């Protein structure tokens, strides 16, 4: 039994390293021999299939990811933290349990279903409401991703609020603070690092999401000028193009380099979340 647990623990670590090693080694020839670092990171031109003028700039893709993720967070942070606060502080008993289960069910909706909602519901709605030429854009992807990130944020944030000792609530209320003041002035500061971790995990979730953004954001590789512009994210690019490249080709390797970039990005976000949580428990 002990052996089985150890083995599964080590294999999990092994697989993480193996995956990173595979991605990195596939991309390494491209990264170290063919790629122009400056172009890769600063050029918005991604023309991997052009015959005369191949370009491997990821700036537009990065801008796509950042804009969709940023908009998603504008939606997810207030919704996620707000519902965590509501569930933790303003409900009890059956209502509380019911809401928690509902939120967890939301987390279980497959991302392709969210993408489908983006395509079939949001797309015509955005065209209608904003008079946009196309409804598959930053706004659509941001809303869908935002809603997708709400459950994980709510769950983690609710845990963080629950971890605040009841004695803080009692002391604050007994001093004549209202429940809102208590939440705002005592609970939020006390749970600050846990709430930040919740937000960062939501960000990580949004950056790494592929299927829903692939379906909801359109496909134009460009730095968006407005939320109604169509964009392409890092993940969507990999998903859309990898199947059509020959293994070992420059394009194929370039997509793996995009994968490395994505990996570093999500790794950075998760590491930040982790350090924050650790910082809290160390105190």
């Amino acid at each position, binding site marked *: 039994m002990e052996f089985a647990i150890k083995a599964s623990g080590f294999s999990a670590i092994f697989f993480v390293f193996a995956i990173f090693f595979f991605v990195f080694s596939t991309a390494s020839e491209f990264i170290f021999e063919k790629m122009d670092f400056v172009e890769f990171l600063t050029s918005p031109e991604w023309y991997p299939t052009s015959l005369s003028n191949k370009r491997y700039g990821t700036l537009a893709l990065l801008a796509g990811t950042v804009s969709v993720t940023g908009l998603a967070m504008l939606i997810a942070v207030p919704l996620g933290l707000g519902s965590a606060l509501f569930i933790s502080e303003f409900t*009890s*008993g059956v209502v509380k349990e019911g809401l928690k289960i509902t939120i967890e069910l939301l987390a279980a909706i497959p991302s392709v279903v969210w993408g489908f909602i983006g395509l079939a519901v949001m797309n015509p709605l955005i065209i209608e409401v904003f008079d946009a030429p196309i409804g598959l854009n930053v706004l659509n992807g941001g809303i869908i991703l935002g809603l997708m990130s709400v459950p994980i944020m709510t769950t983690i944030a609710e845990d963080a609020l629950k971890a605040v*000792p009841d*004695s*803080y*609530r*009692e*002391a*604050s*209320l*007994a*001093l*004549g*603070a*209202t429940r809102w*003041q208590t939440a705002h*002035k*005592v609970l939020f*500061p*006390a749970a600050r690092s846990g709430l930040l971790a919740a937000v960062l995990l939501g960000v990580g979730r949004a950056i790494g999401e592929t299927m829903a953004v692939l379906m909801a954001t359109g496909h134009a590789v460009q730095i968006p000028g407005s939320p109604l512009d169509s964009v392409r994210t890092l993940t969507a690019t990999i998903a859309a193009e990898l199947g059509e490249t020959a293994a070992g080709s420059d394009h194929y390797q370039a997509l793996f380099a995009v994968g490395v970039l994505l990996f570093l990005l999500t790794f950075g976000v998760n590491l930040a979340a982790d350090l924050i949580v650790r910082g809290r428990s160390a105190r």
Partner: protein
Amino acid sequence: MVSASPMIEVENLSVNYAGKPALDQLTLDVRRNEILAVIGPANSGKTTLLNCINRMIETIPSASVSGTVKVDGHNVAEYRDPSLLRRRIGMVFPLPVGLPMTVYENVTFAPRMAGEKDRTVLDETVQRCLKQSALWDEVKDRLDDLGTRLSGGQQQRLTIARALSLNPEILCLDEFSIAVDPVTTMKIEEVLKELNENMTIVVVTNLVLQAKRLAHRTALLLRGKLVEVGDNEVIFSRQTADARTFQYVQGLFG
């Protein structure tokens, strides 16, 4: 001492937690400007009584309350906003709860939540309350330290300072000395005697001798019922109205 009506009037107060009785038909007055001690073994309902006075009992979903509590002649149930009631009653808990903020912010928390923004008023409040709680000399250079950095005894005095910040008419303390060293306990007892000049004080204590030292009158609770309340001269004599009071005070049970 102008008005003769009691500061707190508890009448037929009963509390159940999920059907389990904690207070049973309790009737008890707290006179203006007295120190009333409430003694009794663990689980006799002392904390529950305090929670009914400032309506913190409502924050416990399983609790159901019947009977009335009046503060200064007004039924506490009639406050539309319980915050307004709680601002009139300072409350000190058994274990010091430094809110996760600085000493200064701890003491000014209640006034700030009540809408006070004037920095000079807040500065004065900090000085007054920390002096009243005999903490000023020890922390006057540490006002911007986290409250939780203070020693246990200092933290308990900080919570007393905090409880005084809105100039309450009533101060309730729930077994305040449970986590405090004897020297600090004595300091706090001196503080309470001074505060008593213009404040009504209810001290819940598990220390019979503390009740004897500190209070004018003492009430004994037993399993949610009032056994006896009376002047300390009576409660701590052989002439108690109820034999159980004598036994409890003598340490024969509990």
